[in-house]
């Protein structure tokens, strides 16, 4: 095995140059809570680690234009403790809270939770439901991509060689909006989602749902945006009939694996249940968020 190099560049340009110029396998090191385990088990054997935590803008949470920019190296705990962000995007914070222990969240980043590309990553369905966009910088410049397009399969992303997710952009929040993320796990802490459901919706003054986004985790090879599930909510008061259609649309979108943590049949049924419960929480939050 060749020697493992470690670099901690202070600028994004240096980080991109290091990654795109690497001769062997290079990996971005943010929180390291997945990467170090993969290195330890021998699943990956990188020759270069590029620690992005010394790049100042990647560690920032910035409010602007009515939305938020979360640097890719912001830790879970930083995000959870950011009172205004948590007030605007409680569903995203629901997802982040479920990532590992306090210890893990002290290091783990939202950018890393996305780029590790686990189908069961808890923050990802919540970010997809929120309409978050990943800002990506690489050797050929910057681009933006909807979060649901970043992961393409277990452990696989659409990032090209040398590209780094630098931040996640959350859109402006209309009045009467609420989001929520719930997952099913056999125990409440330190577990991996069997099914995860994120719902984000906006109501008009009469309580009719005018916009919605629904995302599911751990029921396919990557977290899914489910437009048909959102369509079941839009134009309704999110009543029992709408929830029944929501559950059916969610189940239809699933193509789950059958494993020791949940059978295919169990995941399908649970997806319908979790998405309805998440919608109920998002609805309550939207009603309270009327300015």
């Amino acid at each position, binding site marked *: 095995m060749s020697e493992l190099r*470690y670099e*901690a560049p202070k600028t994004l340009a240096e980080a991109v140059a290091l990654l795109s110029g690497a001769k062997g396998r290079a990996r971005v090191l943010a929180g390291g809570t997945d990467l*170090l*385990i993969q290195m330890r088990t021998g699943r990956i054997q990188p020759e270069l680690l590029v*620690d992005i935590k010394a790049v100042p803008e990647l560690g920032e949470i910035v409010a602007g234009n009515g939305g938020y920019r979360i640097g890719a190296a912001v830790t879970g705990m930083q995000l959870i403790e950011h009172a205004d962000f948590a007030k605007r995007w409680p569903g995203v914070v629901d997802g982040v809270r479920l990532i590992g*222990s*306090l210890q893990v969240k002290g*290091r783990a980043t939202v950018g890393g939770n996305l780029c590790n590309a686990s189908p069961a990553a808890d923050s990802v369905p919540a970010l997809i439901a929120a309409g978050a966009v990943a800002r990506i910088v690489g050797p050929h410049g910057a681009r933006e991509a909807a979060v649901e397009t970043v992961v393409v399969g277990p452990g696989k992303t659409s990032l090209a060689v040398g590209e780094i997710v630098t931040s996640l952009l959350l859109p402006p929040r209309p009045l009467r909006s609420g989001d929520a993320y719930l997952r099913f796990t056999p125990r409440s802490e330190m577990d991996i989602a069997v099914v995860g459901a994120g719902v984000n919706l906006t109501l008009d003054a009469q309580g009719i749902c005018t916009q919605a986004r629904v995302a599911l985790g751990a029921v396919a090879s990557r977290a899914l945006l489910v437009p048909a599930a959102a369509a079941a909510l839009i134009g309704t008061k999110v009543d029992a009939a709408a929830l029944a259609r929501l559950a059916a649309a969610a189940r239809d979108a699933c193509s789950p694996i059958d494993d020791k943590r949940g059978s295919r049949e169990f995941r399908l049924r649970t997806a319908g249940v979790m998405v309805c419960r998440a919608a109920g929480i998002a609805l309550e939050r939207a009603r309270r968020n009327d300015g």
Partner: protein
Amino acid sequence: MARHHVRATVNGDAVEFLCETGQTLLEALRDELRLTGTKEGCGTGDCGACSVMLDGRLVCSCLVLGVEAEGRSIETIEGMAVGEALHPLQQKFLEHAALQCGICTPGILIAARALLERNPDPTEAEVRDGLAGNLCRCTGYHKIVEAVLAAAREMRGA
């Protein structure tokens, strides 16, 4: 091999050590600095036995590279007692017999202190939540939770 010269602060003291890129902070603490109070349990961030404070943040030292400690401040179990005087948490763990084999104890004490710094008057549920990242495979959690609650009462002067 690439040896990194790392300068950090451990329990208030300036330290220097050499480590290889792949070495974890846990390995650096135990093998280079000979601070063996911090224990290795799972090595994958699940058990919390290796918990330390890194720049005031509770982390698993098995999930941090030694080289990432450059310029950082680390607090370990060795810094918890002041001379011969035990920290109230340590004293209450003894009084409540909140340990058996002791491997999880340093990590639980570090996590419990972090919890009480944020929340000096936690409920039982909050203590359990604050220690959810720390596994004990012999005592069970009841005595640990009782000891933390007793220490919290004493530290508040209640």
